[in-house]
């Protein structure tokens, strides 16, 4: 467990800049989630920290030590890959023991057995220990792959979308399990995902990445309630935030070019009239797809859902988020 500090990391592949001037402080014991779409530089950031890619410029500090020139082994990081990457020629037990047997750790056999059994118990794979890695289901493989990181006590855990290939139920279970393990061990964890539920539920801090740049860093709540731009606002919240021209509703709003309407920013019964295009019943919630003067809006229906497709509904924004022409947030909420 250690603090990891990134200072102005830059990395490009050929002409393509994957990571641009990234600075971030990952506190000891924090669970940092990097959020962003494919190609935003999330995985590259992990690989730069782990040492699988070399930096073009910048500094990575782990526990105060500059590790730029160290090999992945020397950096003392554990990584969970998106593609499992279990060693197919080894059993589950040997896969889990592999990092412990490395020339750097050289763990005694009794200690290896104890740790492997402990981690297998946590991840519910004790009965699979003697299977070959190729004889497992996708979910089991991913748990072994997480286990291979957990057997160690590294400076930082790096996880690259570890849950993305699992089915919804297993994902929900492992999400809770991972968070529990992390808070019990007090480990430092950097986690890459594009799943906002994972970000919201597990993170102590979220870093939002856009085209290789870190555009906002804060607690999940800060990112959700105080996004710095339309881009960041769009990363969290289900249904997604609705971005509408500011003049769509009667009250003009200062410099604002656009307003962002989350479902909770909508009041029903007053204001503009919108037609209901489609109603989606999701069980716990009902989504309304509205059309307001040619703009599509997705909102949550009030309890009891009095609306049906084809009817009209009056909506009025309440304290929406305001953005200027270039998509940046305007902080004065009531101009």
């Amino acid at each position, binding site marked *: 467990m250690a603090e990891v500090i990134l200072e102005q990391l830059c990395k490009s592949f050929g002409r393509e800049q994957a990571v641009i001037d990234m600075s971030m402080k990952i506190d000891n014991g924090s669970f940092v989630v990097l959020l962003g779409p494919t190609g935003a530089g999330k995985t590259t950031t992990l690989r730069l920290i*782990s*040492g*699988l890619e070399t930096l073009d410029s910048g500094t990575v500090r782990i526990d105060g030590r500059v590790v730029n020139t160290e*090999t*992945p*082994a020397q950096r003392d*990081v*554990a*990584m969970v*890959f*998106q*593609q*499992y*990457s*279990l*060693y*197919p*020629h080894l059993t589950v037990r040997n896969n889990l023991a*592999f*990092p412990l047997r*490395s*020339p*750097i*750790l050289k763990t005694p056999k009794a200690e290896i057995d104890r740790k492997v059994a402990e981690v297998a118990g946590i991840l519910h794979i004790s009965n699979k220990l003697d299977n070959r*890695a*190729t004889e497992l289901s*996708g979910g089991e*493989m991913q748990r072994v792959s997480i286990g*291979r990181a957990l057997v160690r006590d590294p400076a930082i855990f790096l996880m690259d979308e570890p849950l993305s*290939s699992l089915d919804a139920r297993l994902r929900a279970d492992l999400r809770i399990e991972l968070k529990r393990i992390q808070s019990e061990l007090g480990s430092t964890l950097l986690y890459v995902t594009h799943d906002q539920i994972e970000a919201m539920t597990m993170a102590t801090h979220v870093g939002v990445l856009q085209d290789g740049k870190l555009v906002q860093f804060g607690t999940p709540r800060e990112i959700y309630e105080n996004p710095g731009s339309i881009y960041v606002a769009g990363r969290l919240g289900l249904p997604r935030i609705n971005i509408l021209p500011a003049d769509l509703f009667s009250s003009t709003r200062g410099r604002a070019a656009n307003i962002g309407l989350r479902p909770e920013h909508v009041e029903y019964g007053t204001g503009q009239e919108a037609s209901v295009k489609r109603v989606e019943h999701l069980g716990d919630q009902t989504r309304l797809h509205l059309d307001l003067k040619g703009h599509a809006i997705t909102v949550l229906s009030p309890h009891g859902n009095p609306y049906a497709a084809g009817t009209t509904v009056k909506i009025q924004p309440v304290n929406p988020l305001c953005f200027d022409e270039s998509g940046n947030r305007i902080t004065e909420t009531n101009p």
Partner: protein
Amino acid sequence: MSYSITEPSSRQKWVAGTLVITYAIITMIPLLWIMMTSFKTPPDSISYPPKVFYEPSLEGYVNLFTTRTRVSPEKLASLPPPENFAEEIVRNRDMVIAGPSKFGGRFLNSVIIGFGSTFLSIFLGTLAAYAFSRFKIPFADDLLFFILSTRMMPPIAVAIPIFLMYRQLGLSDTHLGMILLYTAVNISLAVWLLKGFIDEIPREYEEAALIDGYTRFQAFYKVVLPQAATGIASTAIFCLIFAWNEYAFAVLLTSGTAQTAPPFIPTIIGVGGLDWPAIAAGATLFLLPVMIFTVMLRKHLLRGITFGAVRK
């Protein structure tokens, strides 16, 4: 009877089975005939019409491993009773065993040179293939083409320069010379085949091993090599078969100390007529090592061990 559309019907299976077995028998007949001949007596081996059923004899094998001298009937009668079956077989032909033949030594030469060059080809080939597969090498494509170009003509086409060079270098009729020669011929095959196999092994495994605390070389032999086992096994079989069966260079470059079995076997011509059973016995024994090696590595050839551990 109903069956799935992708599963052949039992009639199709029966036809396919019959065809395969018939083909196997046809291709096996020459080998089978050699093995049968090796257990015949010299008169049986040249009898006409050819004998399919006969009383088996080990005379061919005895003649293969011994040299014999003819003795007079009086001398034969004065000898003590034969000590073993070989002595007995030889005396029935009015001869006594004079000593061991050269076959054992030639066979050992074949083993040393065949397996030595196979090991060297695989060792160098795997390292080169790994480097070509993983590292950015300047002019990698040209180098690979250059390596392949060594097989663009039959190796025997350069026999004369090699003969002259070997004589200059003192490599003629040495084990080292033959191992180097066969390795040089096999290495292009080894590099190309193994590069294909190593390309198929995802880099993520090595990356995982690097992060798990291993150096690149440790990752190579602990993670890449076991997964390349299938490719290494099949490449090794190809290399061994070439080196083991090679005749032309062996005739040209070896005569004594390093002579391999292929040029030696035809020279086993018996006293007073061609000793077909001995030649057949030599050929039969010569087949065994490659057969055993292939059977030993068979499970590696059949098992795709990397299948399914990385999500594609």
